[in-house]
């Protein structure tokens, strides 16, 4: 088969003209229907609309076509068609990503994995589950609960997000301080590469020969290969878990108390924090009755009953010594879930007090918490928007939520500019622009702030090792050097120009 003329242009930023797009759509649709059942191929504009964005809904673009493979053979067939035609492929799991990783390309096929949603096997002796990539995160724990096992990573989106998407983003959750991220809880993945080869990274043992390509595929945002099967590790459900909630008169002392808990040798299962704005929003949304203070800390400990009892005493002491004005602990499973419900509902609660919010994902060394929060407040005032904060306090992952109204002219842009400024503040204290949500299309510019030209070039070289013609999710996750040069021309901070070695455009 020959490459389709004009398709390369369609993948570029330049908007392709409607007539040529329609020709391409018809041609690609036909080629796809020749290799997978027609019900798995969508090309009508109204069918494409539901796929035009992921969780970052400010960016929208219907794809050229949607392909919905039902098995690995069909994934291979779709990739073959796309490779031969030179049509880019954007893989989509459940579309809950918050950085535009699954944002379609006008001239690209959206490979929707949601039909591949079977749990293939459960191996209780080795504590593994083999699942298809479209299986939802929570579905796994539900399927193994009767065995006393569960899958530990628990992103707040766990009822909806897919395990393939979790691997592609290296998703975290409330419990990852103790139990790790997705990368720590996956034993193996099967991928299909752009040459149609099915490969296994990792194994059912604790390691595998060769390079740790299993680690490399985690967080690769669909740019290296398509994940077609995942073997996750299962853990025994802890016998006991209890949560302590503490109220603080300022975020600084809350931050110090968090550091002291960890310094005291306890590794909590969860350690979360919310600021005043978030507490108000949550109290308004649910009947959780968090104290109206400057910061609430939630600390969960789990393990055997004896362990939990011991650690609870210690945690209480540290929180009180750290200036907590009120400390409450769950006395039953219902109370534990109730105390968590506020934190888990933080996003929807904030969604109610603002017409739109924009969720950031910077991670910082925890000791800079108070300073960074103050800086965020200062930036919010400068940009004239409100910011409320939820925070995976244990691991330094912040989620400042920028409140704005997309219907007011210019506010979306202002929110994005404020977001970028917040991420730069995170990088400035030695942090990173994204802890768990990924770069997608959203943080391409801030990547230029975090990484040098050499590092970015290295990322591109790795991409080319897997996908030399850049068919898989091109333009996402890693900015081009040219883009950084352009961006650098606009952003000069502290007299230091990022990427001064690059030619300016």
């Amino acid at each position, binding site marked *: 088969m020959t490459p389709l003329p004009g398709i390369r242009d369609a993948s570029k930023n330049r908007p392709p003209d409607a007539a040529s797009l329609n020709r391409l759509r018809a041609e690609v649709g036909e080629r796809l229907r020749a290799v997978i059942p027609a019900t798995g191929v969508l090309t009508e504009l109204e069918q494409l609309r539901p796929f035009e964005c992921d969780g970052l809904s400010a960016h929208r673009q219907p794809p050229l076509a949607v392909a919905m493979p039902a098995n690995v053979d069909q994934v291979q067939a779709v990739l073959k068609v796309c490779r031969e035609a030179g049509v880019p492929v954007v893989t989509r799991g459940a579309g809950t990503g918050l950085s535009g990783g699954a944002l379609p390309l006008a001239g690209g096929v959206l490979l929707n994995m949601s039909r591949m949603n079977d749990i293939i096997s459960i*191996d209780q*002796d*080795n504590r*593994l589950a083999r699942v298809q990539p479209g299986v939802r995160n929570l579905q796994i724990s539900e399927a193994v609960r009767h065995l*006393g096992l569960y899958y530990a990573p628990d992103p707040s989106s766990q009822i909806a997000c897919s395990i393939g998407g979790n691997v592609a*983003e290296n998703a*975290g959750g409330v419990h*990852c301080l103790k139990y790790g991220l997705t990368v*720590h809880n996956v034993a193996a993945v099967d991928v299909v590469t752009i040459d149609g080869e099915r*490969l296994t990274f990792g*194994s059912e*043992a*604790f*390691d*595998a*020969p*060769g*390079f*740790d*390509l299993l*680690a*490399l595929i985690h*967080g*690769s945002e669909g740019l290296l290969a398509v994940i077609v099967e995942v073997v996750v590790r299962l*853990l*025994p*459900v802890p016998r006991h878990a209890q949560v302590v909630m503490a109220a603080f008169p300022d975020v600084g002392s809350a931050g110090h108390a968090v550091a*002291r808990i*960890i*310094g005291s*040798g306890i590794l909590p299962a969860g350690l979360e924090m919310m600021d005043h704005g978030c507490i108000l929003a949550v109290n308004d949304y649910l009947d959780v009755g968090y104290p109206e203070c400057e910061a609430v800390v939630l600390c969960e400990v789990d*393990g*055997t009953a*004896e*362990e939990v009892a*011991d*650690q609870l005493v210690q945690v209480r002491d540290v929180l009180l010594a750290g200036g907590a004005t009120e400390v409450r602990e769950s006395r039953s499973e219902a109370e534990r879930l109730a105390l968590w419900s506020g934190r888990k509902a933080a996003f929807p609660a904030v969604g109610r007090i603002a017409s739109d919010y924009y969720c950031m994902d910077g*991670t910082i*060394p*925890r*000791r800079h918490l108070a300073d960074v929060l103050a800086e965020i407040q200062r930036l919010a005032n400068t940009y004239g928007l409100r910011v409320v904060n939820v925070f995976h306090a244990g*691991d*330094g992952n912040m989620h400042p939520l920028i409140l704005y109204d997309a219907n007011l002219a210019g506010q979306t842009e202002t929110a994005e500019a404020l977001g970028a400024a917040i991420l730069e503040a995170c990088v400035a204290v030695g*942090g*990173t622009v*994204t*802890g*768990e949500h990924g*770069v997608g299309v959203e943080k391409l510019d801030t*990547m230029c702030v*975090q990484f040098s030209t050499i*590092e970015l070039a*290295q*990322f591109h070289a*790795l*991409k*080319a*090792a*897997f996908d030399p013609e850049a068919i898989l999710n091109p333009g996402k*996750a890693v900015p081009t050097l040219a883009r950084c040069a352009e961006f650098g021309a606009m952003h000069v901070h502290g007299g230091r120009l990022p990427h001064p070695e690059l030619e300016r455009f």
Partner: protein
Amino acid sequence: MTRPAPEKDIAEALAGEVEQAFRDRAALCIRGSGSKDFLGREPAGRKLDVSRHRGVISYEPTELVLTARSGTRLSEIRDVLADQGQMLAFEPPAFGDEATLGGTIAAGLSGPRRPYAGSARDFVLGVTMLNGQGESGRFGGEVIKNVAGYDVSRLMAGAMGTLGVLLDVSLKVLPRPEAERTRVFKLSAAAALEKLTTLGRLPIPLSGAAWMEGRLYVRLSGSASGVSAAERELIGEPLAEKEAAGFWTGLREHRLDFFADDRPLWRLGLPPAAPELGLDGKGLIDWGGGQRWLFSALPAETIRDRAAAAGGHATLFRGGDRREAIFHPLSQAMLALHQRVKAALDPAGIFNPGRLYEGL
């Protein structure tokens, strides 16, 4: 926080040597203290000595993060952490008093705690490294969660120095458990594997499980009360603290009498519940069943086929012919991908060529 003396930072000199080797297309054998010289295929090339690039760069106990130069002695890191009641939870084997951090991560070896706490790569948060052109880059960072860019830092773990020269490494560290206790059971290997499968499904604070010479050793770590409760549940015979420490360290460092044997030593990575493979030789089970050591004179192919059939793989860990395959062979497609990944980081193929696989 320790501020290192400037003479311990030799990154520039190392970069110069790599640049030169790149220009000359000359192979480099990256070396810390040489404690892992025995591992992998025969080393080749000019020595690149990283052992003088040393010192802890930063350590924040309340952040659970330590960053040190690659030539820093593992023993120094253990001491610095122990002073603050913390540890490297993957319990890396040193195989020598002078073992360095860089070699530890490059070899990617983990000790008895691996199934319960995680592996060397699991604790890598970031690295600064030189690529094959002598260019320095920082990947990952000093924060526990970080998904910006591909995970180049974890890719370095276990790559045996074939992808880059590690300059410094940031690791996640963990609090030392308050209490640690070992219980022993007299069991056959088959019965031990069965018991390990049952234990693996219990929510108890396991931190080690190994079978040797008719005895199953089970280690528990955690809060004092939690460990006592688990001990009561497990039953078995208690092992005195000193003896237990000797056993687990001896197992980690291969200093137990078991490891005195002239035959080639194989390391089998298997799904932990895999039954005994029935291979001729002398075996020891670690990692709750997931890692099995085997002294055997059987042909490599026999051992590898049997391990692969059980869902695992086999490495010739010590002894044997080091010009032949040492690590479990890759399929042709996987080897080709490995070669492309290597070329992306080390285009002239100068770093430890052939150490991991022939042609890589």
